[in-house]
């Protein structure tokens, strides 16, 4: 999109401009801004002005304006291109609205609840006060134990599927892994509860039960992501190792896994981020408690998601303070997920292997 200069006849007589002129560089922004301005003015005049209406009608009007203007100057093909570009940009904007609105709302409501007390104290025997330290520690322990269970099983499962599995068994396992990625999280919680109830009797609540429930959700995610990463390791590297007389297991541990390392770590971190905020399976396995518990094998254990749920459901005497703490817990969870994602990106950039 250069300036709106007139077509210059070239010496050869060839027309490389597609038979038309071109709109100035500011045409798109001009059309959008102008349309939004006109719509806003009309809405203000009729007394029906809202931001949402301005955006909706502004987008529609600017599409029409841009199409007509471009068609007149540049021809129908470029006019269609401009309208499609505009609609794709609008679709992207629409998709971003819930995300930013959610982040903004959680930050706005969560920040008042944040305090030193929130991070350092539990809520034992406190009326209308206390912190969420027990929930933060509980979240980290439950998720950490879940990762300890899931990562070895998941990565070894992926190695089996990608390096060893063949035929019908492999296809069946892949199918069931896919099914497992879709099971509702409450089912995982009830499974863990039923499993532990067999041994410890009804009403049992343990931190490690939550970890088992989360593992049921996490293992298929780890298998799926690890399998994709292992698939990318080129076969010629395996063959190079075999040609040196290397046994298969050494080829996998010394060549395939190191080459895939960055992708494996990234996949694990994304899987952790995915399960760290689970609520339903923990409600039935780890229970609700107000005091700090760092032993996953003994007694109930609080976590951030259940804490937020509980503060909202039964706020106690000082309602607003409870609500603030619930939002603060939600904000803390989002922060943990974001940190995990940033760490995953960092690990990937730092350790990724150049594969040709």
């Amino acid at each position, binding site marked *: 999109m250069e300036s709106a200069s007139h077509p210059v006849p070239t010496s050869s007589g060839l027309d490389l401009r597609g038979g038309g002129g071109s709109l100035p560089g500011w045409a798109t922004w001009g059309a959008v801004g102008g349309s939004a301005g006109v719509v806003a003015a009309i809405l203000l005049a009729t007394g029906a002005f809202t931001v949402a209406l301005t955006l909706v009608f502004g987008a529609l009007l600017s599409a029409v304006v841009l199409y007509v203007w471009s068609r007149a100057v540049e021809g129908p093909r470029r006019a269609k291109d401009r309208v499609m570009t505009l609609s794709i940009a609008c679709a992207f904007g629409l998709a971003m609205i819930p995300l930013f609105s959610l982040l903004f709302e959680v930050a706005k409501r969560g920040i008042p609840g944040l305090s030193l007390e929130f991070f350092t104290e539990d809520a034992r025997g406190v009326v209308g006060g206390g912190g969420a330290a027990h929930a933060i520690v509980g979240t980290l322990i439950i998720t950490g134990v879940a990762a300890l269970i899931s990562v070895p099983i998941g990565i070894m499962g992926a190695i089996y599927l990608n390096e060893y599995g*063949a035929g019908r068994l492999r296809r069946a396992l892949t199918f069931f892994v896919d099914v497992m990625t879709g099971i509702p999280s409450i089912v995982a919680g009830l499974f863990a509860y039923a499993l532990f109830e067999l041994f410890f009797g009804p009403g049992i609540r343990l931190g490690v039960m939550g970890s088992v429930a989360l593992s049921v959700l996490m293992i298929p995610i780890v298998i799926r992501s690890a399998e994709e990463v292992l698939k990318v390791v*080129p076969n*010629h*590297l395996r*063959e*190079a*190792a*075999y*040609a*040196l*007389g*290397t*046994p298969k297991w*050494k*080829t996998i541990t*010394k*060549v395939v896994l*190191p*080459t895939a*390392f960055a992708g494996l770590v990234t996949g694990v971190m994304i899987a952790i981020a995915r399960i760290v905020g689970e609520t339903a399976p923990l409600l039935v396995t780890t229970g609700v408690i107000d005091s700090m518990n760092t032993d996953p094998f003994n007694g109930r254990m609080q976590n951030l998601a259940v804490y937020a749920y509980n503060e909202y459901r039964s706020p106690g005497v000082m309602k607003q303070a409870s609500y603030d703490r619930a939002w603060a817990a939600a904000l803390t969870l989002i922060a943990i997920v974001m940190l995990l994602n940033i760490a995953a990106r960092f690990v990937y950039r730092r350790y990724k*292997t*150049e*594969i*040709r």
Partner: protein
Amino acid sequence: MLGAATKRKAAGENQGTMSDSPAVSATSTGPMTAAGRPAKTIEARGVNLFYGDFHAVEDVTMTVEPNKVTALIGSSGCGKTTFLRSLNRMHELTPGARVSGEITLDGEEIYGAGVDPVVVRQLIGMVFQQPNPFPTMSIYDNVSAGLNLNARKVPKTQKDAVVERSLRGAHLWDEVKDRLDKPGGSLSGGQQQRLCIARAIAVEPEVLLMDEPCSALDPVATLAIEDLIGELKSRYTIVIVTHNMQQAARASDVTAFFNIEASGQPGHLIEVGPTEDIFTKPGQQATEDYVSGRFG
């Protein structure tokens, strides 16, 4: 069972005492100064190769002479590479691939019952079409990969000697001796291929298979590899697949010509003989058509 050679190699591995083996002997001379050593003979009798239902190579019988370079030539899809890969049991790594017939290394059946393909591949090394250094390893670790990956406990000083000797043998030492800790992927294509040759000869195989080792390289790097092949044959038996007939003429002592009747038909060995004879007075019309450039 694969006999004496296998057992010697296996025994040496288990004990970790290989003072008499050239693989870890710090004082052993490089291939350049070596007066030569007797290498091993490969014989193929009635070899048929399949990918599932597809019959890729039919009834190949030929002998690969020791301390000589044998070139396999022929048009694309005629089974040269498939045949090459069957010589060190790489063919069977492809799902559905099968072998029938007999292939022997100095008289020992390599497809015999109880033969471990891992041991076969330690004796018969391979260099691939695309240079494929391990991307996570340094130059040093790439060369010593064969020692590390085979779980031999080799002292550092001996490993240093093996790395230096192999890199010298591959004509790469002077170019990389100051940056052995850099990744193997940092080298140029020709250097990477020589690194892969160094990696293959570091485990002291008896036979070296090369699958179009120069097809991804420029003419200068190609010449360097061809010179290297000429030197390596004093210590190894070499089989090289090539599309480049000048290369076969320049670098090989024996040439085997493969051909297919039509796409989908199995490949056949048309004839095998001294390179000079194949290129100047071939016994078959098809060979003459091919080497004179009339087709293929």
